[in-house]
């Protein structure tokens, strides 16, 4: 009897451990997918609007190499820095940059309307497109890129956004190539972009 009870306890504990294991690994308790490779653009699914009012999605980007980054226009430090860094890299690349998609996706669609995005991107390199959309579609986009964002209240009654600040590079076929850190110096960033520009050639040959 005692032995049987012990067995039952053991089985119960095992089931519980398996249950906890499932909850934490595959279930609702699974950690957010951060630090993972983004999906290929061909496997993503979201609908957004660009700063000129066109409907856009991941398929818009297939056929040309692509650079994507997340931010918001109420961001005083990292975002204008990233946008001006990218503008500088694009100037360095010159005509090569004309073959690229360069997309700034907002993580703050409540404030970043199509009009707000249009005015903001107008101050930077003309190749940079600004995409916004519904909260739900922005979340679908960040999930595909394995990026994250979070709204954080500030003491003045406003809010700021924490967000993935890395820049994602994809080849013309939509395959993920590499990432550029937001503070990466030009001498590392520009060769990475050149790699994305030539990546498909390497894959298809």
């Amino acid at each position, binding site marked *: 009897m005692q032995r049987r009870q012990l067995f039952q306890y053991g089985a119960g504990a095992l089931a519980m451990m398996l249950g906890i294991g499932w909850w934490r690994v595959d279930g609702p308790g699974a950690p957010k997918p*951060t*630090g993972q490779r983004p999906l290929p653009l061909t496997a993503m699914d979201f609908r957004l609007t660009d700063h000129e009012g066109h409907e856009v999605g991941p398929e818009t980007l297939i056929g040309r190499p692509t650079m994507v980054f997340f931010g918001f*226009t*109420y*961001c*005083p*430090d*990292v975002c*204008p*820095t990233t*946008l*001006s*860094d990218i*503008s*500088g890299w694009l100037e360095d690349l010159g005509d090569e940059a004309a073959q690229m998609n360069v997309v700034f996706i907002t993580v703050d669609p409540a404030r970043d309307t199509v009009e707000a995005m249009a*005015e*903001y991107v107008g*101050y*930077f390199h003309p190749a940079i497109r600004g995409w916004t959309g519904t909260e739900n579609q922005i979340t679908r986009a960040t999930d595909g890129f394995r990026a*994250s964002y979070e709204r*954080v209240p*500030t*003491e*003045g009654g*406003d809010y*700021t956004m*924490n*967000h*993935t*600040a*890395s820049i994602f590079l994809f080849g013309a076929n939509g395959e993920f190539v590499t*990432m550029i*850190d*937001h*503070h990466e110096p030009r001498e590392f960033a520009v060769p990475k972009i050149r790699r994305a520009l030539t990546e498909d050639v390497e894959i298809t040959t």
Partner: protein
Amino acid sequence: MIELPYIKGLTLFLLLSGISTPTFAGSEDVIVVNAWSRASIGINRPGAAYFTIHNATEDTVTLTGLTTPLATMPEIHETKTNAAGVSSMSPADDITIGPGESVALEPGGLHAMLMKLQDPMIEGETFPLTLTFSDGSEVTVEVPILGIAARGPES
């Protein structure tokens, strides 16, 4: 007569320090150089300003506050990026500068966050920013407003 070489040195330093014009009020030996900021779109978005504080005194100084007529809530904030590449921004800890040391506020790190702008920040204009230190001294610097896409004090 003893002061003369010092003043010459200081003048030379100010001439070399570029476009920012430090002014002094009380704290003769804490200087603020390379100040710059970016133009804003309207007044709803917070602005950011950058500068380098050099402590030429023989004591450690701590920056305790900022004031400017341009914004009612200026604060030192710090952008941090974690291992997963996620950037966040929050009020910075006190900035303490040892004797002879400098602290640079630069894009992607420490910056003066100008919340509740009273006027738009217009490229080509300047605004006064007063830094208050733990010994009660103040330094006011005239901050040039550069373009939205500016990358540093020279661009």
